[in-house]
């Protein structure tokens, strides 16, 4: 009398078959999905590269020497072409920046410090000889228009 018996080994075999079938299916799905993604990315790369080529060409087009020269002439008036006499070999012969006095700028006041050992007595005034008065507007008003005109905000 044979009874229907599911032997352990048969069960294992069926399980393995099912598992491997499922995993095969899953892997192939994954592969297809990744391939599709890769295709899209490749296309994106190609179109980005095309974009870069266009930008490169545009950059070099905008940096044409004749265009730069024209723009420099128009907007950088104080900048001139470098002449041989502008190039110096020795940094020490570079003329020093003229001092304020040479430039005609007279300083308003120097900070004065008292000399340590004075032989002659000298009075150092703390207050300036000329009295400095604060500038005050002649008729301070709260009127908005006049305040604005005091700070130079409107054209008279």
């Amino acid at each position, binding site marked *: 009398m044979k009874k229907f018996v599911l032997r352990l080994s048969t069960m294992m075999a069926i399980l393995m078959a099912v598992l491997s079938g499922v995993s095969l299916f899953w892997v192939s799905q994954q592969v297809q999905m990744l391939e599709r993604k890769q295709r899209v990315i490749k296309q994106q790369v190609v179109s980005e590269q095309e974009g870069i080529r266009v930008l490169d060409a545009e950059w070099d087009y905008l940096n044409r*020497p004749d265009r730069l020269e024209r723009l420099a002439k128009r907007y950088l008036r104080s900048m001139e072409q470098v002449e041989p006499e502008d190039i110096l070999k020795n940094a020490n012969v570079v003329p020093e920046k003229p001092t304020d006095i040479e430039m005609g700028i007279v300083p308003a006041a120097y900070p004065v410090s008292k000399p340590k050992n004075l032989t002659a007595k000298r009075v150092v005034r703390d207050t300036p000889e000329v009295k400095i008065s604060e500038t005050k507007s002649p008729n301070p008003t709260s009127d908005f228009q006049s305040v604005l005109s005091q700070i130079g905000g409107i054209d008279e």
Partner: protein
Amino acid sequence: MSRKSPFSRLTIRIMGEKSGNLDLVRGRIVLLVMLFLFFYGAVMVRVVDATIIQGLFDETDSYIGAPQADAGNDEHNSKFRADIVDRNGVLLATSLKTASLHADPKMILNTVDTAKGLVKIFPDMSYGEVLKKLQSEKRFVWIKRNLTPKEQKKILEIGEPGLVFDYDYRRFYPQGDLASHIVGYSNIDGKGQAGIERSFDNLLKTSDRPLKLTIDIRLQHILRREVNEAIKSFTAKAGVGILMDVHTGEVLAATSLPDFNPHAPSSDANSPEMFNRLTLGMYELGSTFKIFTTAALLEKKSFPLSRKYDTTEPVRMAGHTIHDYHPEKRPLSIPEIFMVSSNIGTVHMAQDLGTDSMKKFFADLGLMSKMSFDIDEVGSPIIPSPWREINTLTASYGHGIAVSPMQLIAATSAIVNGGIKVNAHLVKQENEPIASTRVISQQTSLKMRQLMRLVVSHGTARKANVEGYEIGGKTGTAQKNVHGRYDAGKRIATFVGAFPIDDPKYAVLVMVDEPNPNAKSYGYATAGWVAAPAVGKIVSSVGSILGMKPDMDAVDISDPLMKFVSEKGGE
């Protein structure tokens, strides 16, 4: 009446000896049903995954690729050409993908409206012509090549299914006409027609790496600007300028004016702007050849520079009379002959030298044969045949022999760089070769540099002088040979030189074709007035770009020659 469940049979237990077999069968059926249920379940799960989970939530999986991305990728049909760049990598020529429009007349729904729409977008097309194209029996008609993105958008807005875009590469030249004779151009089918585009056609088609030239567009711009200025101020017909590295033969800048727009080259191959005067044009370059005659004499005969030649009488031979432009009418030393550019003196030097020596020397410098160069537009020099003695005499001052400006500057480079022959070239090499064939000795090269400096400091090319960059060179004003006769009114003014002359790094050439005197030149249109000032301006502009240090206190290397120059020396 209670109905029995259809499955109730399964619950019937059949007893007997066959019951074991039935059990077995039933077990198998259950197993099969289970398997089917499992697979249907798996399919269901997958459907849910594919439609809901991936379809709705996973956006990246959707189709993004622009339609043009896959067009024109066909390696064999593509018109893609590799970029051409200058020595600093600036684009001289590049290929960009553009759309072209063609139509399938069978698919056009409304020919009249489509034609109207197209004419609106492209005003240069005629309505009748477009309509005729759209109504033709063919399945393929070109409407317009190389659309701009704006035009493409407008065409898409027409929404006509019979209008089809085709994507392919088109050649662009970002620098325009700046180096058009060097770079050349390619036609609408992507085939190189001139310059580097033609000579390297196969390489550009197959390679995807850019081809690097020796040109520097900054120098090219300065050279072109100054040559153009010289042409304009002397109402000349044409002009040529070259800047070359004297040690390697790299052409740093080369311009031939008039030039052309490579995007729209003239269809007439004989029009003046299509003619490459740098290498294809052959000119009698006049007194600049005295450099080679003098170098040959100093090299082969080892005469002292103090040797004098009498220039009192013009030279008469075989029905020709050779005069001086500014006759000195006295015996002149070699430096004086070179400085005042005396034809008579140079002819006497050529007589001392002899025909064979001179021909061999010219051949060593590459002046007697077609030069090898990186572009195809190279001409053969015009050499007198047969070469009689009179030809030796005229060739000594650059008449009766015609070479290209590129040959002249390459030969001059060899004279000034210490005596080593250089090969002029345009394609940048990994390690620029230092040529090794010696044509003259170091000693002769030094003497020649002194003589060339003398021309700029005291001679005919004083207008080329730039304080700080010591230039040396030689002017040449040749009468043009028009139909076998020399026309005194038509000249070619040339200056060829090198700087800094005590140890030359760069050679420079300016040639102006048929200059006319202008208001400032006192009736002169000679090289000293036309070409020399242009060279001066070029050198003072390029010096800082080339990173040269100007030396204001430099000792003039021509000073030792002053003892051979009499007081009267001058012009």
